């Protein structure tokens, strides 16, 4: 069974190598090859899931390298959490790859895209399989790299290059915190392996203060990667990349890595006394912020990006309030319907060539399958009962309700806003009459629609495994420590359905029934509207507060380096003052003497000494005897 795990990880690498080196020659065959690889690893994932369901988990590690008495090991662990994640990653990656054959049909050499996608899948699988924090850190940055490569895939677009750089650097900031967290844990607990950390913390006897700091530092990594509040600015810009890439990376898998890390090292968070609250506070701030911005965005991909940020925020809230299972469950369901939404958006953009939803309208007639699958996804994300979104969101609200009423209230507000902006999007793009005459949308080809259909069915069905119908099989499958089962609270369930339906109704009222309400609202609440439209001006704040002064500082340090340090070391600065004062007197000799000399201080004294050599014999003799007199006087005194 272990070699299934190895083959699972290594197949995408094979796909990557084939596509990178022989991509230009293989053209389409290269893409098919990488899809085959991903399909292979998906099968292995299913095998492993069956193996894990059968109750046994795999754990293997070998020493990576040693320095002195510390030895660093690298290995893989497959337990329930990993199995679920493997399925999610490989499945979504497979579907996205199939979809992108159609999407990138026109591209010149699209094999590079497939190469990066398979490299990304490899690193994501590695991240999920890794058994210790250091290995996670390794794949963590590799995943960041792939997102950089994919965002700046269309390299001749300057905005894509900028967005890629911004994504990588923001991730790097998070990674810096992540590293410090690993270092604290490594020294304080003596190990980076998850299982050992959990056992050690379980025994207790550790100063909770340090563990809290370690937890918060680890969470910094998650903030960076999952685009939580302070470091969320890169995700909306990451939409520059091709939509299938966004679907896979910026919706389903990579952004979920932050959540996965928090889940995987949950023992650290629970041991610390303040870290869980910290996680929930960050989570709720992010989701509120993102949801409010999404209300007014007009670019279809930006809306989905902000919705991802807010859904992730919700997952963080779930983890923060102790809803370990709820978080993971929402992560899984969200991966499916958010990937689906992105692929629909991709299809829409691919066919209409425009991203602004105000220009779209009435596409339902032309793109039946895309519209219908998108409708299912909207229902799921809004939390309408039979669909997966309802079950996972309900569990989160339940966990929040049990833990802290305020969080519960805010989360349901977020649920309401989510429902509202999703259906605003749906109504504006698909229903009503087409606003832009010269758009001529048409249904996307088979290869794109089939993944949509599969994803739609998944987002419909996947919620059931956590629902009471299968008596909460999911919470028995993934749980933290004592397997406590929270009983269903019907009040919370009904209120979440009500909130969802209210959101849909409002959207229908605003955009279907009387379209002038949004404009009216926008007019009289001008400042708030602009605030939201410009994303609370966070980008601008960052730019003025951090980026611009930073660049100024680099320019200053460069001038400081070349003028002060360089100058003072070989005396150029001070010498210029020296020479100017005695310029007239020794001008001729300075000019030709110094033409190739660096005019260092040493040189200047040399010139003065040289002047002593006046050529007059009697000067010399006089100087000799004066020095004799001086020496004698010195000697006598």
């Amino acid at each position: 069974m272990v070699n299934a795990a190895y083959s699972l990880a290594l197949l995408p690498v094979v796909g990557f190598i084939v596509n990178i080196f022989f991509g230009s020659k293989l053209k389409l065959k290269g893409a098919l090859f990488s899809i085959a690889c991903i399909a292979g690893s998906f099968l292995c994932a299913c095998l492993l899931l069956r193996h894990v369901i059968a109750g046994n988990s795999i754990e293997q590690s070998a020493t990576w390298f040693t320095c002195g008495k510390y030895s660093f090991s690298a290995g893989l662990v497959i337990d329930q959490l990993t199995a679920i994640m493997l399925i999610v990653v490989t499945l979504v990656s497979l579907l996205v790859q199939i979809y992108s054959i159609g999407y990138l049909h026109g591209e010149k050499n699209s094999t590079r895209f497939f190469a990066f996608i398979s490299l990304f899948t490899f690193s994501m699988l590695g991240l999920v399989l890794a058994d210790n924090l250091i290995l996670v850190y390794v794949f963590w940055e590799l995943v960041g790299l792939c997102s950089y490569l994919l965002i700046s895939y269309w390299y001749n677009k300057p905005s894509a290059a900028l967005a890629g750089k911004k994504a990588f650097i923001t991730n790097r900031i998070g990674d810096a915190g992540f590293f410090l967290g690993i270092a604290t844990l490594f020294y304080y607990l003596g190990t980076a392996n998850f299982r050992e950390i959990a056992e050690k913390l379980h025994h207790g006897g550790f100063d909770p203060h340090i563990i809290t700091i370690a937890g918060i530092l680890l969470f910094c990594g998650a903030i960076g990667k999952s685009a939580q509040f302070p470091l969320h600015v890169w995700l909306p810009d990451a939409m520059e990349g091709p939509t299938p890439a966004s679907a896979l990376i910026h919706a389903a898998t990579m952004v979920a890595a932050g959540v996965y890390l928090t889940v995987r090292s949950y023992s650290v968070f629970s041991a610390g006394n303040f870290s869980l609250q910290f996680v929930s506070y960050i989570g709720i701030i992010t989701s509120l912020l993102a949801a409010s911005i999404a209300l007014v965005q007009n670019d279809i991909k930006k809306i989905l990006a902000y919705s991802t940020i807010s859904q992730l925020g919700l997952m963080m809230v779930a983890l923060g309030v102790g809803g370990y299972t709820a978080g993971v469950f929402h992560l899984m369901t969200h991966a499916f319907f958010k990937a689906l939404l992105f692929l629909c958006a991709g299809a829409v953009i691919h066919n209409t060539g425009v991203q602004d939803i105000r220009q779209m309208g009435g596409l339902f007639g032309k793109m039946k399958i895309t519209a219908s699958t998108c409708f299912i996804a909207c229902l799921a994300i809004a939390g309408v009962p039979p669909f997966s979104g309802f079950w996972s969101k309900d569990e989160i609200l339940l966990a929040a309700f049990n833990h802290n009423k305020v969080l519960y209230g805010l989360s349901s507000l977020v649920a309401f806003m989510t429902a509202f902006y999703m259906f605003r999007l749906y109504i504006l793009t698909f229903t009503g009459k087409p606003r832009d005459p010269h758009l001529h949308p048409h249904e996307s080809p088979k290869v794109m629609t089939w993944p949509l259909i599969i994803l739609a069915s998944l987002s419909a069905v996947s919620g059931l495994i956590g629902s009471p119908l299968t008596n909460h099989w999911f919470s028995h499958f993934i749980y933290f420590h004592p397997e406590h089962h929270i009983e269903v609270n019907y009040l919370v369930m009904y209120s979440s359905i009500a909130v969802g339906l209210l959101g849909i109704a409002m959207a229908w009222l605003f955009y279907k029934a009387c379209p002038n309400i949004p404009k009216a609202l926008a007019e009289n609440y001008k400042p708030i509207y602009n605030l939201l439209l410009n994303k609370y001006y966070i980008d601008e704040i960052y730019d003025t507060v951090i980026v611009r002064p930073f660049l100024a500082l680099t320019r200053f340090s460069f001038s400081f380096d070349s003028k002060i340090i360089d100058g003072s070391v070989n005396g150029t600065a001070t010498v210029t003052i020296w020479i100017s004062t005695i310029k007239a007197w020794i001008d001729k000799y300075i000019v030709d003497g110094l033409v190739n000399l660096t005019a260092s201080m040493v040189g200047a004294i040399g010139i003065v000494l040289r002047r002593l050599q006046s050529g007059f014999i009697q000067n010399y003799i006089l100087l000799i005897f004066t020095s004799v007199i001086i020496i004698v006087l010195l000697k006598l005194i």
Partner: protein
Amino acid sequence: MNVAPFIADIKYILPEIILTIAALVILIFSVLIKNKRALAYFSLASLGITLLYVSKTPVITTSLFSGMLVNDSFAAFFKIISIIIALAVILISLEYKEISPNYRGEFYCFILLATTAIMFMGAASNLLMIYLGVEFLSLISYIIAAYWRGNVKSSESGLKYFLIGTACSITMLYGISLLYGLTGSLDLEQINAILYGNTSQPAAISIIILTILIGLGFKIAMVPVHFWCPDVYEGAPTPVTAFFSVGPKIAGFAVLLRFLLTGSIFFYEHWAHLLGILAIITMVVGNLTALSQTNIKRLLAYSSIAHAGYALIGLVIGTHIGQVSLFVYLLTYTVMNLGAFAVVIAVSNKIKSDEIKDYAGLSLHSPYLAAALAVFLLSLAGIPPLAGFIGKFYIFSAAIEEGFITLAIAAVINSVIAAYYYFIVIKTMYLEKPQAKIEIKPAPSLNFALIIALILTLAIGIYPQPILDFVIHTSSIFIP
């Protein structure tokens, strides 16, 4: 009539006698025969014989001529060095055009006489003998400095050298008279016996030491008495400058060492402090003024002042290790300096100018010569695989072993500054474009001297052991 001892001592000063006779023979023949090269070969032959004789005879330390000279390995060391210098100078000046053909014979005679003068100074242990040796060497130096009669600069350098030289030697004479007055004897041993430990008249002793220091300092171009050095080096014909930079300098150190070490009449601890300061000032002045020089002979002049400063450190240290380092330094300094001057002669024979900018691009059209000069300059700067480094290394290790940390640090900083102006020359040779495209072929004799100097510089640098054995042996007689 106790004439016998006088005759018995003659066999000890045979080398000096051979050279004087050779000089006289050259004098006579220079009038009779026309081709001057025969004279040169004759002088080389005589030098060769004396060298063989000196290196063969075992050294028995006795005092000769009732205390006038002392024949010991110290004197033998200086005999060998002075003969080597004379050989090199004659070889270098064979092709030198500026020395007018009809006075070339006298030139060789003077070089031989100068060598005998240095030998006497090396061996003198009597104040009178020291004074005569110094005067003899100075007189010959004034003559050969002004040897290039047509040239304005040469006669000016001769005049400057004469006037300042005589002034300093008369001051030394005055000091010797006072020393004689104080002790009533001219023999160094007796003077030391009398003066040792008696500090009755500090002022008188100070004046005596100072005046003698002025006289000898003049020879090694120490700081207060270094002013003549650049002008004379620039003016005198280049082979003469080559001789000045090594001959008198080493003789000066010989006498200073003899004074310092036969007995601490200099009340050693009393004066080490002053000599140390003078050494540092000499180094600093030599190096700093050299930075802005444009004429290569003046640059080498200032560099020789700086090297006198380094050698002084060896002197200041005074213990056995200090002496050994001084000898090693003088030996390596001689080899490098003569080599450098040989190249300068080869170039000035062709380009007729000593300005540094005329050396531009030398490496392109005569790579061998440029490489040789580069090696010598690097060795002067003290870069490891070469002889100069061994000299500097010994001086630094002596300084550190005896705890003269400030001296060591001053020397170290100075050697960095020195590297700068040596590199100005290397830079012009290698990094700049040449104006004129002239291929410089050095004369065979000059070439021969150059190759020997090059081989010696590299050999001492890479495997200094044989040289060290030779030096340790000679300086072993002074156990302070």
